[in-house]
């Protein structure tokens, strides 16, 4: 299946990409992270699937947009 992977803020800089469109057999965001990056997955990293917060072990599906980002600091 194909998914869009997005990285924001400091994670985008560490990974070296803001967006990747990839073919993947990954069942969840955790497996997708391992395929898309060579970095360990910090437990503070937040995950969103289709622009809503999701658990890192929640299943992903064909066409999903999966985002990884550090703790938020707005306001």
């Amino acid at each position, binding site marked *: 299946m194909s998914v869009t992977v*997005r990285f*924001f*803020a*400091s994670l985008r800089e560490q990974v070296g990409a803001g967006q990747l469109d990839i073919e993947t057999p990954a069942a969840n965001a955790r497996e997708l992270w391992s395929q898309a990056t060579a970095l360990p997955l910090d437990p503070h990293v937040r995950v*969103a699937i289709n*622009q*809503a*917060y999701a658990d890192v072990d929640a299943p992903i599906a064909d066409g999903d947009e999966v*985002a990884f*980002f*550090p*703790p*938020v*600091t*707005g*306001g």
Partner: protein
Amino acid sequence: MIIELRETPYDPYAELGAFTRRRADLAGKAGANAVFVGTMRDFNEGDTVEGMFLEHYPGMTEKELERLCTECSEGAGVLELLVLHRVGHVEPGEHIVLVSVWSVHRAEAFRVCRDVMEELKHRAPFWKRENLGERQRWVEKNTPG
């Protein structure tokens, strides 16, 4: 509920004046209006901050703000809720966030205004990168509310 992201500086007090003039229907109905304005400081963690870039997640940031505003105001008798948040380059002294809540009585206005700010700080996808002059630094966590 009005949620807006703004790329340019704004005057929150002028925004509120203009909004209340447009929304004459709130007059006589809203007995209370609680307002929070968050402004950029020129110092953080012992360093002088010259400016910052506010990154966001276009699409999700607006959706998450809508979700948290809906949750915070559910069943609270809120008549109107306005959230205005800057994105992009911000200079010290410029206003970052405006939260304004209109309700019948003060208790709901105070509570919802604070709840929206706390939820925004913990959930809304924004990230601050500070310009310290000779280097840039990502802000890693919020100051306690």
